């Protein structure tokens, strides 16, 4: 089953090129179908054993060393949901059929990379799949139009290369100190307190901090998200950055660091600084997508902060916030796509009073904003509560206070966004503005419903998560 998550999208990319040109309009829907299957697969592994008949030997043919657990399934689920949303946004925002076809192909390549990151148990393989995702994402950003594409794409690829150098150097040190590059070998080296193993781990963490846009390595993210075409922003903000940087950190915290003191302290400090800096930078933005980008930095800081708390609860809290943020942030970027499509601008100083003209976009964006700010009973409230509890259990009271206070700043910048864009007196220049097309509203509404449903039904979800030992 695990192998199929790599092989099916890969084979699909190759087969899509065999389609006659006039049939390529179906490419977007084929990719959508594959991502729908991926979403289902996240549940199949956990809840049922299914005989895939003829397909099973195909997966075993190559004998990849993969393993799935609750964390892998979380990433696979988010990838499926966010990928489908991005494809729907692409359908309504990209201009010609060829652009849509290539977008679908590159998303499928990135999906293979992300699935690989979710399932590998070896640091070099992790690096390889992070690179697969980075190359596909770079092309997606660079394919955009506008003056800022060069800056966004260049910063992304340049800092990706810096991260690669750090990670490869780290692998060399791991080989020297432990003789292996599996997560288990790294854990053995760290448990033996081998200095070279700790240097290697510090370098690998720095590489992942760059990929995950942790402060002070966050410089690339706002430019990349802003420069990218609308569906690419949805995909990047929803899953790419999180899987490449943050999920890899979660995997290492769970499998390798195991609550060891120096690693835990690094995660706490980096997480807290990232939350605060990201939140205050969000407050000062006037561009809709740029504010969302800095907000993403801040929220990913929460996930990393949780990893420094009580190990089991911290991983659970980080996983839940990972999911909530993937859903809500890709939804907000879908809202941004709708606004940009209708108004042709994302400058919040030029907006105002759009709530009356775009009620669905306004309503869904309010749900996502309030959830990310941590207001009950939405899903974001529960994940932030769990993060604070994980820190409290680990007696990290100061960091718990930072998490709570920064939530107020989050609320402040999202209220400011809502006020500037959707409330107030409608501006004369937008008198003709109308709600976005149904095609753009469907992903936003579907993602908002997930946020509400998870918030209201959280006790049931928690029971399932705890039962699965996520």
């Amino acid at each position, binding site marked *: 089953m695990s192998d199929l998550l790599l092989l099916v999208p890969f084979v699909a990319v*190759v087969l899509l090129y065999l389609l006659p040109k006039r049939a390529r309009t179906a490419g977007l829907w084929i990719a959508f179908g594959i991502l729908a299957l991926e979403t289902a697969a996240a549940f199949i592994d956990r809840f049922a054993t299914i005989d895939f008949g003829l397909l099973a030997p195909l997966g075993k043919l190559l004998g990849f060393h993969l393993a799935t657990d609750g964390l892998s399934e979380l990433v696979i689920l988010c990838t499926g949901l966010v990928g489908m949303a991005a494809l729907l946004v692409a359908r309504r925002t990209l201009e010609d059929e060829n652009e849509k076809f290539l977008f679908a*192909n590159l998303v499928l*390549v990135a999906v293979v990379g992300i699935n690989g990151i979710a399932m590998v148990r070896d640091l*070099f393989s992790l690096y*390889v*799949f992070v690179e697969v995702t980075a*190359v596909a994402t*770079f*092309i997606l950003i*660079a394919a955009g139009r506008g003056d800022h594409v060069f800056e966004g794409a260049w910063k992304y690829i340049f800092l990706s290369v810096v991260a690669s150098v750090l990670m490869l150097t780290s692998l060399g040190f791991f080989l020297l100190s432990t003789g292996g590059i599996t997560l288990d070998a790294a854990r053995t080296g760290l448990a033996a307190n081998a200095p070279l193993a700790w240097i290697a781990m510090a370098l690998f963490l720095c590489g992942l901090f760059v990929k995950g846009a942790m402060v002070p390595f966050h410089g690339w993210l706002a430019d990349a998200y802003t420069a990218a075409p609308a569906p690419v922003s949805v995909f990047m903000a929803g899953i790419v950055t999180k899987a490449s940087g943050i999920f890899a950190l979660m995997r290492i915290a769970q499998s390798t660091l195991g609550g060891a003191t120096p690693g835990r302290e690094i995660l706490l400090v980096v997480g807290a600084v990232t939350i605060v800096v990201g939140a205050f930078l969000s407050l000062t933005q006037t561009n809709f997508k740029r504010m969302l980008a800095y907000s993403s930095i801040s929220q990913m800081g929460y996930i990393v902060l949780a990893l420094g708390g009580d190990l089991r609860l911290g991983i659970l809290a980080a996983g839940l916030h990972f999911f909530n943020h993937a859903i809500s942030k890709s939804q907000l970027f879908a809202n941004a796509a709708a606004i940009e499509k209708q108004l042709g601008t994302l400058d919040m100083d030029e907006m105002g009073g759009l709530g009356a003209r775009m009620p669905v976009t306004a309503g869904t964006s309010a749900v996502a904003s309030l959830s990310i700010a941590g207001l009950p009973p939405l899903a974001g409230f529960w994940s932030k509560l769990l993060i604070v509890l994980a820190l409290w259990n680990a007696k990290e009271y100061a960091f718990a206070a930072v998490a709570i206070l920064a939530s107020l700043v989050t609320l402040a910048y999202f209220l400011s966004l809502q006020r500037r864009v959707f409330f107030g007196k409608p501006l004369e220049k937008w008198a003709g503005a109308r709600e976005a097309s149904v095609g753009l509203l469907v992903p936003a509404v579907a993602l908002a419903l997930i946020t509400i449903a998870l918030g209201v039904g959280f006790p049931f979800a928690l029971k399932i998560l705890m039962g699965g030992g996520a």
Partner: protein
Amino acid sequence: MIWFTLLLVVLVLAALWASMTTTLLRSTLGLALASALLSVVMFSMGATLAAVMELSVCAGLISVVLVSVASLTRPRSIQEELASRRSRLRRIWPLPLVLIAAGVALSFVHAPVDIVLHLPKGDGDVRTVLWSLRQLDLFGQILILLAGALGVLVLFRKEAKDDD
């Protein structure tokens, strides 16, 4: 020993060529050659796993370099080309001397610690390493090349559209 020294010299020359040439294609070829030679050096020193990783990383790196440079640059005029070559030579000419001096100096230095490299299982046979131990990475590198090919398709088409 003579073969080994010769390999190292060609490796350094290929790396210098990659950094000093002003043509993207030549630079990429130089990088590929340097990487392949480095892999051969590693094989001959018995570090098969490191050699396979070097090959694997370089395959990905070359596609990234090609795609990113192709998409982020514009062709230069002959005058710009000549001016750039002169300024590049002025900046880079000490590099070979520094490399040779560093190599000579390092050959006299003995590492203060006795580092033991634990060889992974299957090391020594490149087929075992490639097909039995690292086949997942090989799959990953094929994907990077596929993404690179898609990138060339997307970005060159975009460039053509922009030119129109």
